């Protein structure tokens, strides 16, 4: 039994390491000169940190990083501000048409962005938001996924809490902000992490909305960089890759516990 456990563990760890080879290779290439990479080396002959500098100097990495950060954080905060009240209304309040509004809030699942890409682009253009970070942020706000996860979680909170608060004279808004919202924290974190990563990593929509290279987000900028400047291809691109990946990995490491819970939640 013990032996079987050890063998299985060795097999699983070996498999995981093999699976991670592309990432390990990418992180090592970050420290390599072009010559090392072209020679197919794994371990750099000298630890070369210039790639990082080259990428920061030559490319508009700083602007792209800022754009990515503003649009991801802005959209995530906006989604919470818009979707928490909506989810609260459909999950914890009784009013005529509640069920219809709940169904309405889920229609976004049926309409993925690629299916409406051209009219969506035209709306954004009409509001003058092309080549503007708001052109990424505002269309992301009405998230059906956010309302779904939040309302699922809020529904499960027992009524006793809000009745006790009512007896103490709390208003409906007090109950939403001071009773239900703090108790829904795991769902709020799940929604925030999911949307932050989705928007940080999105490629399709920023590619369409952003027209000048100064306004690119990191994913679009990286591809433009790799395609445009043949002189800085390998090492610096890998350096840029590492820079672009870090924020999401950091968010994931800190929020992992919540994220798993959120996934379990959406499975129930």
């Amino acid at each position, binding site marked *: 039994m013990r032996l*079987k*456990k050890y063998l*299985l*563990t060795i*097999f699983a*760890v070996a498999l*995981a390491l093999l*699976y991670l080879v*592309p*990432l390990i*290779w990418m992180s090592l*290439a970050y420290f390599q000169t072009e010559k090392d*990479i072209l020679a*197919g080396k794994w371990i750099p002959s000298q630890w070369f940190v210039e790639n990082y500098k080259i990428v920061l100097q030559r490319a508009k990495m700083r602007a792209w990083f800022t754009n990515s950060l503003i649009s991801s954080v802005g959209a995530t905060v906006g989604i919470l501000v818009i979707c928490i*009240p*909506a989810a609260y*209304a459909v999950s914890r*309040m*009784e*009013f*005529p048409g509640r069920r219809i509004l709940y169904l309405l*809030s889920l229609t*976004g699942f*049926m*309409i*993925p962005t*690629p*299916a*409406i*890409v*051209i*009219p*969506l682009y*035209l*709306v954004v253009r009409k509001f003058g938001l092309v080549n503007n970070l708001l052109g990424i942020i505002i*269309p992301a*706000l*009405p998230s059906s996924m956010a*309302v779904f996860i939040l309302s*699922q979680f809020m529904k499960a909170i027992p009524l006793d809490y809000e009745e006790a608060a009512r007896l103490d004279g709390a208003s*409906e808004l007090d109950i939403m902000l001071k009773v239900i919202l703090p108790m829904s924290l795991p769902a709020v974190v799940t929604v925030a992490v999911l949307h932050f*990563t989705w928007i940080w*990593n999105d*490629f*399709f929509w920023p590619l*369409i909305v952003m027209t000048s290279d100064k306004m690119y987000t*990191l*994913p679009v900028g990286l*591809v433009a960089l790799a395609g445009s400047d043949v002189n800085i291809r*390998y090492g610096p*691109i890998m350096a840029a*890759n590492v820079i*672009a*990946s870090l924020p*999401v990995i950091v968010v994931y490491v800190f929020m*992992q516990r919540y994220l*798993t819970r959120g*996934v*379990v939640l959406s*499975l129930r």
Partner: protein
Amino acid sequence: MAVYRKRRHALLAYLLFAPFCVLLFVFRLIPFVNSIRMIFYKWDILGTPKYIGLGNFTRMMSDKVFWSSLWHTVYFVILTVPPIVVLSFLIALLINSRISFKGFLRSAFYLPYTLTISVVCLTWQMLYNPYFGLIGRMMKAVGLQPINWLADPVWAMPAIVITTVWWTIGFCIVLYLAGLQQIPASYYEAAELDGANGFQRMFYITIPLLKRVHVLVLVTQIIASLQIFGQVYIMTGGGPAGRTRTLMQYVYEQGFRYFRMGYAQAMAFVLFLVMLVFAYLQLRLMMTSAKEELI
């Protein structure tokens, strides 16, 4: 409760829902209605739209590139979805078995999913490079002729598939792990007492009880794969010779390179119709779970 069912209460509920509702209409529902209107027009974004009836569809019927793009999309789904479902299930079983380092394993397999598509594709582009890429060198080491993956008409699509499977599998593993943890251990104990072997436990307990997860993974992956765009745009640009051009890639080319807005939207609409079936399944799946929650 009756005390709170007052008009003011309802008004507040509508107010809380209103911002979301307005944004949903402006950025989802109205564009959706417009998308249906647009497919009957010819428009180069500058002039005035011209009504051409079903012109876009007759054009589509005779457009060889449209048909090949549609086929490449279906081909991509066929090649991608089964390995994702099978591999993520098997890896989840492995992580869920009696082994150590579960936390490390879970993170290791999830890590690629957190990367942006650009990082994934640029890294794999280098791995596939026939001159210094890791894969080519490994093939050479075992005496094989390295393939120029992304420039080869036959191998370009499988190369994109391998990259996609590697990238997305982590998310499905997490779904399966969540499902596996919800199966009560007593089921297995009872089966063991009855003398069921590992094979029987797998086919009579694990697989049937995970039905919901199987369907969820299958449906979400089909929806995601039908929309494939980034991997193709970044790794091959639809080449070589259009052999990896998928429907969204073609929509993008027609809409944002040649500004044939009506034609591009008509093709996006075809994709929408194909996706509708699966999106409906997904929604129903989520709604049934929501209903159970309400009781």
